[in-house]
């Protein structure tokens, strides 16, 4: 029995939604097999990584705060990627957003007032947008590939943190440790559920996803992004400027990455530290694709990735799985997803052996 890949006339709508689910399920199965083969409790590993965080209500708060930045950044990236604008530097825009918010928090240190947090959020978004504007400018003016420039700017942003927290922003009480002082109360994101660590950023993330979905499906802006990505020639005929689309895509994805950055520094961190960049910007790329570049899908995908992070730590303590296992599971998920994508445009068709035609 043989199989052949056959091109579909129309991309399969069903497969668009089925492949992410299949990818997650395959990841669980293959993961269980691999880890059993190398001597761990494979089934236990899958259970601890994928189920424990969901069944243990104590873990929900962790899922929420881990998923929030992934969702916010992932939503922005999904919009940009829809338009075929490859912003790989969300991590850098997240960092600059965090730094811009930190700047406001330090300027207003010791002050009180409801306006401080909104100002920080505004600064964070503008910071992320400004940082994303650099690759946009280079791309539209000089035709420099935005993948390279946005990625490289990420490394520059990390050096900027180191510079700021070692000298001008150093905590006077930090015993020489390079970090800023703890923000004052007015610059910290409030906790929304008493007794937990769930901060305001969590509902904001969900809101961002829903609003983005609405805009992408119901507005000219969303239409423009989708058309430019799916049919660039048609878009040009339709009068959508390519450069304007690149600018919009970079500013939206950069602004949202900056928003995630400022919420993260004002929420869980409450000060700028050298460990602020935690690869949310890169993980969000997986989130965007796992979510099918659909903002609502990104919300779900962000939670799935958060589950693997939180569950990975559970598995370390309960069955001694090494930390690297989390990365393996995440990578497998992206791998199966991308591999499965072929089924959207192709179908698997069984090839019957040709009856032998009259051997002479």
């Amino acid at each position, binding site marked *: 029995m043989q199989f052949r890949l056959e091109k579909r006339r129309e991309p399969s709508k069903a497969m668009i939604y089925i492949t992410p689910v299949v990818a997650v399920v395959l990841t669980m199965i293959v993961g269980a097999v691999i880890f059993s083969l190398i001597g761990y409790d494979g089934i236990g590993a899958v259970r601890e990584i994928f189920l424990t965080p969901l069944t243990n209500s*104590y873990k929900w708060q962790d899922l929420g705060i881990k998923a929030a930045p992934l969702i916010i950044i992932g939503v922005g990236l999904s919009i940009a990627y829809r338009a075929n604008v490859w912003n790989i530097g969300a991590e850098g825009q997240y960092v600059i957003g965090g730094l811009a918010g930190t700047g406001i928090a330090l300027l207003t240190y010791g002050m009180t007032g409801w306006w401080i947090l909104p100002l920080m959020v505004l600064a964070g978004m503008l910071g992320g947008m400004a940082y994303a504007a650099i690759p946009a400018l280079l791309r539209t003016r000089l035709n420099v590939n935005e993948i390279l420039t946005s990625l490289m700017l990420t490394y520059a942003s990390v050096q900027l943190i180191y510079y700021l927290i*070692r000298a001008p922003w150093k905590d006077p009480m930090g015993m020489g440790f390079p970090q800023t002082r703890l923000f004052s109360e007015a610059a910290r994101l409030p906790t929304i559920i008493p007794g937990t660590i769930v901060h305001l950023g969590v509902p904001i993330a969900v809101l961002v996803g829903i609003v983005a979905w609405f805009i992408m499906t119901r507005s000219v802006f969303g239409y423009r992004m989708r058309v430019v990505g799916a049919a660039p020639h048609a878009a040009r005929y339709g009068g959508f400027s390519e450069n304007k689309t690149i600018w919009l895509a970079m500013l939206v994805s950069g602004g949202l990455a900056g928003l995630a950055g400022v919420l993260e520094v004002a929420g869980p961190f409450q000060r700028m530290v050298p460990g602020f960049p935690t690869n949310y910007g890169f993980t969000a790329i997986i989130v965007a694709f796992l979510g099918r570049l659909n903002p609502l899908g990104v919300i779900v995908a962000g939670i799935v990735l958060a589950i693997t992070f939180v569950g990975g730590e559970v598995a370390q303590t309960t069955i001694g799985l090494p930390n690297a296992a989390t990365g393996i599971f995440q990578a497998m998920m992206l791998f199966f997803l991308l591999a499965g994508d072929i089924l959207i445009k192709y179908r698997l068709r069984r090839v019957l052996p040709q009856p032998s035609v009259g051997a002479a």
Partner: protein
Amino acid sequence: MTLSRRTFVKVGGAALALPLLGSRAFAQLEKVKIGFIYVGSINDNGYNYAHNQGRIYVEEQLGDKVETVFVENVPEGPDCERVLRELAQQGCQLIFATSFGFGDSVVKVAAQFPDIAFEHATGYMNGPNIGLYNARFYEGRAVCGTIAGHMSKTGKAGYIGSFPIPEVVMGINALALSGRRINPEFTVKPVYISTWNDPAKEADAARAMIDQGIDIVAQHTDGPAALQVAAERGIVGGFGQGADMSAFAPDTQLTAIIDHWGPHYLASAEAVLAGTWTPGNTWEGLKEDVVQMGPYGAKVPEDVRAAADQVKNGQIDGSFHIFTGPIKDNTGTERVAAGVVMTDAELLSMDWYVEGVEQPA
């Protein structure tokens, strides 16, 4: 990217008084469950490896009376908070947070779990259920510096640091002071790489400094990468940090500073079992066997070994302290008068470099 760890115990009177006010009785236990969190991998063959050896030591010593769990590669930020709560929720009665940058998280989580004993390595913020422990790594540096002073041909050592925190600054100064006792021209060039564990950065820093003429490399980061570069480039040598790293550079490791946390972990575990644990503030060294020196490398000559042994033994019997005046800083100002020994509090807030240390960028 990982970041901040270690250092430093604030020996202020107010800080010391706190645990006394808030001290609570812990119940006696049949069996203790202990959680460890590491900033890097237990396979780093250095700092985190050493902490994990300490965990294994406790298991060996207490057998059935202990169960240990650990989480490695924990970032120093909000992720750490989550891991600490996870361990607390899993029923750990004693939790060791082994890196400086875990401090904020320990303070937050310890307040939520007042019945669990927390111990934070190299930190400075204690509390009613937060103990602090640290090791006098600088004593090992003084032994290394003695060897470096004798053996360096260029008279220049490179020092790969993580962050300019007092613990690291004090190590750099100890190396410089002890090297200059032997060779008054000896200098130390520090480079900070803003991480505890990044083999590529550690190796790059080592290469760059070797190109600038150093022939001894020391590091206050977690792995053997710098030592391997030293071996590759054939410079005089380097030192193992955290653990004996001679397996990675057998001819190049001149000696190693070995962190021997086992006895401290055992003592804390036993105290929790007996219900007598109180938040302590320990800073132990060669004398208490918390800091050990690795074997001398084959190329260390007999007379140098004798000189190094003398420094080591002097620190064990208390006759020698590397931070004894006169000590000038690297701008030429005298900081410690002749014959005066720096206090622990002064060491633990050290933010200046001694004469012979190049001011880092």
